Every structure is written in structure tokens, then in C-alpha cells.
């Protein structure tokens, strides 16, 4: 019995962390998010591709490493920790998972190996299957898609998109098609891309098995939710570390503010809230591959619980920094906002807890 990360997983995570520490510095994140050095984001993405983040989940027969979701979770945690300004969850976790479970043999051959070779990059728009806001939604008939998909992840530099209708059918579309319009959505989190996609008689290819059952799309969403939980886990840890360091250094009334119980108890609460989240995220990722009966329940609870804990941590960590925490200067807000997005994307806590309940009825 061993509950924890393998040496390979820790080693890979360390590499991602080191890379981000060097290249995704606060200054660079500021450049990227303010839009004045766009190529920096591409460079960082390329650097991570060089480490191999695109092939983790792709089966070996399609040139990937065929690893467990836990491997992707530790990468996602590192990206959250470094506020990594790069696509990951949609192209390298959700898309491969969806294609693996919903694609015919031919579709798997067509798409999966090209993810490994970096010829194909997928954005993913499944929001309407999870919870349709206002008049958003996509319909499929005569091999074409019409309608709007909101909060499509990582669509900007994608070659293809995976879009879903309300029934959970998944479609592959050409991201560069003239029948598709990509509208940038400006959220508070500028370290990642969110878009709206409008389809007008857009040619689409149905992933064959996605019309048989909703299992494939749920698999992809569960994987995505575990990644978002891991991202918030990493982001929260960074915020705690920064708050603790600051509280040890900053002096008021002649002593380090961290020696005041009002401050140190906030730090202890943050640590106590976050520590069990590691095990929950690892466990959920493990169940995704090895314990199908519990997989959905664990993914939903990981997403909801880590979102709740992270929300509190994000607030407290800013408060420990006092006025400085509120400034743009320290850049603490990048993690605050990333946690804010992770909470709502692919189902807010209330929505996913309801899904968690439904798995038990």
C-alpha cells in the first residue's frame, strides 16, 4: 500500500516548477497579461511542450506516454502554483480523455497522435452540457453545428475545438473555419484564455461513441475538474507560502506581524484547510483511472471542496499582506483570480455537489 506521488511524478512536477520559476516570473506574467509581450506566452508553452506535457495521457500506441491522470494532476498543481500562463487542461487533458473514450479507432488514430506531435491543439467547450447560461447552446443537424458555446477553454491558438451539445455529444470542428467566430471573453484571470465560440452552419465531426452514452463526456469533464482542483491546490499553496513569508518579515508594533495570534491563526487555518486537499486531489485522480465506481463522486467533491478551501485561502492570504496584498505591485492577485476562475469553470461548487449527490442515488 502506498498513497502518494511516485518518484517519477515528483521529479516531473519539480521540472515543471523549476521551468516556471525561471520563465514565468511575476514580471513576465505582468508582460503577458498586459498584452505587451505576447510571444512570451508562446515561448513558455513551447518550453513546457519540450518537457512533454502534451503526451502524458495519450496512449503509447499514439506516441504518448500513456500515464495515469495523477501525472497530469501534479502538472496542473505546478501550473497553478506558478500561475502558469499557458494552455494545459483543455488541449492535453480534456481533449485526449474525450477522444480516447468517445472516438472511434480511426478518430483516435487521426487526432491523438497529432496531439503528441503538436500538430493538433484542441480547445474545449463543454460548458453548456454542464449548465446552460441564458441562450447559449449548440445544436447539431445535417453534420453542422449552430449556436454559441461559452467559456471555451484555450481556443485562441487551437487548430481544433471540441464542442458539446446538451445531450453530451462531442464534435470536432476546425478552429480556423470561416463558419466559426471566436470572441474573446475578458475575465479577471488573464493568465489563461476564455472565449465564446459562435457557429453558423459549421461543419462538424461527431465523436462516434459520444452519442451512445454520456460516459465519455463525463470522463473528460471529471478529468478537467480534477485538474482545476489541482490548479487551485497549487495556487493556494503559493498564496500561503507568500503570506507566511511576509508575516515573518513584516514588522509592526516592534515585532513580526506573524507573532500576533490574529495573523498566525489565519496562517494556521489556511494550512489546515489546504493540507487534506493534497490527498483528496491525488485520491480523486487515482480513482479516475482505477476505481470507476467512485470516480465521479471523488472528482466532483475534489472540485467543490478544493474550490471552497481555496476561496478562503485566497482571501486570507491577501489580508495577511495588508494593503500590499491589494496592490498590483506584488501580483498576488494573479493567484486570487486564477482560483476565482477555477471555482466557476466546469461547474461551480453547488452544481458539482449536486452531481456528487446524484451519483449516490
Amino acid at each position, binding site marked *: *500500500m502506498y498513497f502518494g506521488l511516485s518518484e517519477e511524478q515528483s521529479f516531473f512536477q519539480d521540472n515543471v516548477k523549476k521551468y516556471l520559476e525561471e520563465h514565468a516570473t511575476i514580471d513576465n506574467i505582468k508582460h503577458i497579461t498586459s498584452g505587451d509581450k505576447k510571444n512570451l506566452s508562446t515561448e513558455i508553452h513551447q518550453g513546457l511542450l519540450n518537457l512533454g506535457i502534451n503526451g502524458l495521457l495519450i496512449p503509447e500506441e499514439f506516441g504518448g506516454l500513456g500515464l495515469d491522470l495523477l501525472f497530469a494532476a501534479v502538472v496542473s498543481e505546478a501550473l497553478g502554483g506558478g500561475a502558469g500562463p499557458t494552455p494545459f487542461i483543455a488541449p492535453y487533458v480534456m481533449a485526449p480523455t474525450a477522444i480516447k473514450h468517445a472516438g472511434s479507432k480511426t478518430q483516435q488514430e487521426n487526432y491523438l497522435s497529432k496531439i503528441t506531435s503538436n500538430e493538433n491543439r484542441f480547445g474545449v467547450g463543454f460548458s453548456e452540457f454542464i449548465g446552460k447560461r441564458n441562450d447559449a447552446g449548440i445544436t447539431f443537424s445535417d453534420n453542422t453545428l449552430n449556436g454559441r458555446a461559452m467559456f471555451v477553454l484555450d481556443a485562441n491558438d487551437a487548430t481544433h475545438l471540441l464542442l458539446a451539445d446538451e445531450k453530451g455529444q462531442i464534435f470536432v470542428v476546425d478552429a480556423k473555419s470561416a463558419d466559426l467566430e471566436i470572441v474573446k471573453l475578458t475575465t479577471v484571470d488573464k493568465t489563461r484564455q476564455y472565449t465564446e465560440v459562435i457557429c453558423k452552419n459549421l461543419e462538424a465531426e461527431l465523436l462516434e461513441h459520444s452519442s451512445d452514452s454520456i460516459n465519455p463526456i463525463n470522463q473528460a469533464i471529471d478529468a478537467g475538474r480534477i485538474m482545476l482542483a489541482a490548479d487551485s491546490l497549487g495556487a493556494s499553496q503559493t498564496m500561503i507560502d507568500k503570506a507566511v513569508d511576509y508575516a515573518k518579515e513584516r514588522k509592526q508594533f516592534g515585532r513580526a506581524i506573524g507573532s*500576533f495570534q490574529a495573523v498566525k491563526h489565519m496562517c494556521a487555518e489556511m494550512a*489546515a484547510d489546504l493540507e487534506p486537499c493534497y490527498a*483528496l486531489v*491525488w485520491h480523486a485522480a487515482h480513482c479516475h483511472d482505477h476505481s470507476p465506481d467512485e470516480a465521479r463522486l471523488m472528482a466532483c467533491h475534489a472540485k467543490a471542496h478544493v474550490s471552497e478551501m481555496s476561496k478562503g485561502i485566497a482571501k486570507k492570504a491577501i489580508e495577511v499582506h495588508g494593503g500590499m496584498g491589494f496592490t498590483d505591485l506584488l501580483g498576488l492577485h494573479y493567484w486570487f483570480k486564477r482560483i476565482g476562475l477555477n471555482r466557476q469553470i466546469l461547474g461551480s461548487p453547488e452544481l458539482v455537489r*449536486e452531481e456528487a449527490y446524484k451519483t*449516490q442515488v
Partner: protein
Amino acid sequence: MDLEYGPEYQDFSKEVESFCKKYKGLSFKDGSNNPLGSSGGPGGPQMSRSEWQKTLIENGYFARSVPKEYGGYGGEADILKSRIIAAEFSKSNTPGAMGGQGIDMLVPTLLEMGTEEQKQAYIKPTLHGEMIWCQGYSEPNAGSDLASLQTKGELVGDEWVINGQKIWTSTAQYSQMCFCLVRTEPDAPKHAGISYLLIPMDSSGIEIRPLVDMTLKAGFNEVFFTDVKIPAGNIVGKRGEGWAVANATLGHERGSLAPPDATMNRVNMLMHLMKEETLDGKPLIEHPIYRDRLMQIQGKVLAQQSHALRLLSAKLNPGADVKLGKMIQKLTGTELRHELEGLAIDVMGEIGTLYEDSPHLKNDGTWQFIYMYFLGLIIGGGTSQIQKNIIAERGLGMPKEPKVEGA
């Protein structure tokens, strides 16, 4: 990640399962006299509490790693087997071994720091349930600041003479013995002046007054010592080393107050209750707000269960850094259990306030009782605020509060 226990353990599970079947419905002839163990149902086999302790030890289901010469099973410590035993006993509702402060805290302390004579004299009868212990730590003026305790011990000839008062002493009224922190070196700095003494509770000069708590049960006592005389040899460790001896056992207590598996059992029980009980003709579980609150708690408990697996794994596979992970257990475990019991009261509304033997009481009134009882556990064994100090200072390396002169 590998959550399988392996084939050896599957066989062991079956073995324990059939043992439990054999003793299904066990009840105790002396059950009412012993507050420390769970009692069984009517109709099954009967034996005395002590006989049951011995049966469990013989089979290796209790005191597994305690050497035979001291009354234990004399096997290797096996964390997974301990877990399997606990799980199978709980599943089949077979009464487990007795707990209590003697077994949970004194025995490990004696094994680590006791003299050969002490081990011979105390461990066996304690394991057999024939010698019950209480813990004499807290005093009216030494709660969170335990090391400021003032109960005095003076060595006169070959006897300790003890004077003072202890409080929050669970089970003192049933106990034969007390392991007690006493100030024996009044001139030494406060942590260095304490000794760990073993006091027979039938010594003359001991007075026990039950202390009724908010649950209306007398779970605690005040214990008064007036010129109580015990042999000089009834000391664990050396004079002035009592603080270190006590800390070894306090660490043990903090981990075991609110195991997440037990909390999850209560979550499941609450879910069952919410399917049975109705509000405006609709089961409580069908009310979205109550349901969401239940799911929130379920998520928290799942996180703690996963966390417990991580800590278990760290015991089996040394090298993982779980120092912080262990420190948070007492705080998070007791707070969560209290929150869960409180949720059950909320979903029942007015019905949730019923207590004792009221009509319409649900689940024997356990929700209210445990809701209050856990407030005691949140405060006892190091309050939540003290836990946060420990997490911040020892776990996160944050600076201590400046010392106040003379404290």
C-alpha cells in the same frame, strides 16, 4: 499510488470476519460497570469484559505489538492489520477492545519509558481491563498553559506526599490508578520542575467530586489530593522529566480523537435519516439547501479520509514528509465532527432539539449529545486555538509570541 493491501491481508480480513461472526451479539456480564467499552446486543454469547480482552489479545486483535511478557500478543506491529481489525469489527458491530486513557496513553508511555518493574506491574492488568486509569494533568489554573501546574509532590523519606487539585479528570470515579503530573522541583524553571507519578486511587486523602458537563452527564471529575502518600518508586522517568514523558502521550491523544472513518459513518447515518424524515411531506434530502449542506460536509470528510490514507502510507513507507499533515488532525477532525452533528440538528429543526428520553427523539438523541460532547473535545487535549499556535509555530515556522515577564 497503490491502494491494495495485498493477498496476505485479504486472507487476514477473512479470518477477522469469521472471528466476528463467531462472537456476534456478544454482551457483557459486567457491562454496566464499565464505561470504557462499547456494549453488545442481547441474545448473543456472554462473558466478562476482562475475558473478552483476553480473547482479543490471544487472537492478536488487541495489544498486538505489546510483548507477551507484559500481557500482549507479542507480534509485529502491523498498521494495515490494525486497520482491518477496526474495519471488520465496526462492520459486524462486534464490540471492540476497551479504550480509555490507561490503554491508549499510559501503556505506550510505560513501554517507552517505564522501568521493568512498572511494565510488569501495570501493563497486563491494564490491557485485561482489570486496572482502569485516569489522567491527572489539568488544574483549575493550568489549562492551555499546562506546564504552570501547581499540584505539589514532596519526597519525604521513601514516599511522595502529594497536595493539590486536578480537574477534567475523566473516569476518575471508576479508576484504580492515576497517572499524574506533579510539581516536585519548585525551584526549577516551570517545564523542568514536573514529575510523572503513578497514584493508586484508593490512597487515603483523595477526594473525587463528579463534574457535570453541558451534556448533563458527569464525564469529568475534580480530584483533590490532601497529604496523599505513595511509594517513591511510583515515578516514570526521572524527577523533573515529567513534561517530556507527558508530551509523548499527548501526541498520541491528539491523533485519535476524531478518526475520519467514524465521522463518515455518521455522515452516512445522517443521509439515511434525511431520507426517512420529512418536512412538509417531502424527505429532507429532497430539500436542496439541506442536501447541499450535507454534500459540503461529505466533501470535507472525504478529504480527511484521503488525508488519513496519506498519513497511514507515511507510516508504512518512511520518508514522506507529513509533519504538518499530522499537526492538523486534532483541529480539523474535532471541528468537522462538531459541524456535522450540528448539521443533523439543523436539518431536523425543532425535532433536533429533543433530548434525553423525549418523545419523537431520533437516533437516541445522539446528535445533540455528540454535538455538545465534541465541544468538549475541541477544548480538551489542547484547544483549537492552541492547535493553531502549534501549526503556525512548529509547522509553518512562524515566530512565537514574546514571553511575558514572570509567566
